[in-house]
């Protein structure tokens, strides 16, 4: 049985070759002697939403930046689609099929909403500089395709009516949707979301949750977020960081019931009080029981 089963088994692992699996293994990051991350590992499985939570200063953003090449780890392995990324550079991200949003919105202020999203679709363009400069037909077609693609992304996020506006003239939640459209328009295999719910009202957050669940059929998502109810609702897996160390990992239920997590949140200073309150709230008043 064993020897017979083996080929099929290895065949299957090869078939389901980690098309969009991100593996971070043993990541250490030191900033001038201060350890920001100590031996952190996580795997974002294809088609899943992986949450990254922890009190302020836990190292979430650092790990996030490691995943997109902005911070180079002191040691550790980053494996994307089965290949180790030794010198991951931010500008290669979209080509590798990875998109990220920024804390806040990070839209280009002097460009229209549509143009902002078009930059996100940039890697899909074909026409070279010369044909662009000489306004050759290829460049024209190229530009039109970008425009259409950007418009579709805006429509998906219900922001198409703002296409001609400048970001500064739009309400914050709309700007966040545009930023999301800009990340989605690149059609990534992995979407890195950095606090997408910050500054959103309750119902907008709900919409965001549904949106995240709806894109998972097309890509995996790594989500850094403070709003516990959103995290618990949309994530398949959660990794909890505290002081640069991984203190818990698992499904939302497992994480919620992990005493180390509760302690990390409650033990933290005033800053995390709101988080802690939300966590206990999400736990359904377990402390009373």
């Amino acid at each position: 049985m064993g020897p017979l089963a083996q080929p099929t088994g290895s065949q299957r692992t090869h078939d389901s070759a980690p098309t969009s699996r991100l593996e971070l293994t043993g990541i250490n990051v030191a900033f001038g002697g201060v350890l920001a991350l100590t031996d952190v590992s996580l795997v974002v499985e294809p088609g899943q939403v992986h949450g990254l939570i922890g009190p302020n200063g836990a190292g979430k953003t650092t790990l996030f930046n490691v995943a997109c090449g902005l911070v180079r780890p002191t040691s550790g392995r980053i494996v994307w689609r089965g290949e180790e990324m030794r010198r991951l550079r931010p500008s290669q991200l979209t080509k590798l099929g990875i998109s990220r949003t920024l804390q806040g919105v990070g839209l280009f202020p002097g460009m229209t909403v549509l143009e902002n999203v078009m930059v996100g679709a940039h890697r899909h363009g074909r026409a070279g500089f010369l044909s662009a400069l000489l306004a050759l037909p290829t460049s024209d077609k190229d530009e039109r395709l970008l425009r259409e693609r950007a418009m579709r992304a805006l429509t998906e996020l219900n922001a198409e009516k703002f296409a001609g506006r400048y970001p500064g003239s739009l309400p914050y939640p709309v700007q966040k949707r545009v930023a999301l459209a800009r990340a989605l328009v690149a059609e990534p295999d992995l979407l890195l979301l950095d606090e997408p719910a910050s500054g959103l009202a309750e119902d907008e957050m709900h919409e965001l949750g549904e949106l995240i669940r709806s894109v998972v059929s097309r890509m995996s998502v790594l989500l850094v977020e403070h709003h516990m109810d959103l995290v618990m609702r949309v994530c398949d897996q959660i990794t909890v960081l505290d002081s640069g160390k991984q203190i818990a990992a698992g499904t939302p239920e497992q994480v919620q019931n992990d005493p180390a997590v509760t302690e990390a949140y409650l033990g933290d200073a005033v800053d995390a009080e709101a988080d802690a309150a939300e966590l206990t709230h999400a736990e359904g008043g377990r402390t009373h029981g």
Partner: protein
Amino acid sequence: MDYFVNVTLTGLTQGMIYSAFALALVLIWRSTRIVNFAQGSMAAATTFIALALIQAGQSYWVALIVALLSGFLLGAVVERVIIRPVEGGPELNAVIVTLGLFVAIQALIAIVFGSSFQSFPTPFGVRGFEVGGSTIPLTPTSLYVIGSVLITMALLVALFRFTRIGLAMRASAFSQEVARLLGVKVGGMLTLGWGLAAVVGSLSGLLIAGGGFVYPAYMDSLIVFGFVAAIIGGLDSPVGAIVGGLILGLALSYVNGYVERGSALVSVAALVILIVVLLVRPGGLFSSTTARRA
């Protein structure tokens, strides 16, 4: 009345050249937050290349195209080799580097082409058109100057507005980090930006040289005027640079034409305008005051 029209047209023509030079400064400022003090000598260098070609028997137009192309190359190489190491560093470093480059290129021109005054041809006449028996103060040369600057600006607008490369260049100018995350090759865009800026700078150098004399430092006054024009416009705004250039061109032409011994006062007038703008509206006419901190 004729005199007024004449002075105004002269001012507009000169202003167009200031606009082009200011635009070159603004393009570089927007993308790299560096004021390129070497812009003038870079343009002078390409003008001397054109002059050498013309003296060797080539037509003005061949010389023009070669000069603009070499301007692009010079701008790109300067960014890649000399500016890249100081980009994003302390502002003073970049200032010192571009000032050093300004002196070095000027000296190089003197070594290669000599430092004597040499006349530079213009492809069109400088006599006014005749309409109904009387001569109007519009000359073919001024039409050429205005037209070539307008065409160049239209091409730039088209590039920035309607092409993927232009989109990427604008994105890089607003935020290098964000653009990079979106897959824009920011380094390449900066090189391209410097190259294009140098083309526009070269054009202004060729235009101001036309029908006059060139020597290694002949661009020095244009640097001052172009810089003032850029500041009037707000240093951040291409449209501002163009309007600033036209305002300055007109103002200086009126000073020259109506003030007694005005020609001696032109440079002073430019600096007075600069000071007034900085006092009254330090952000320039076309940029929000908060947009400029440096």
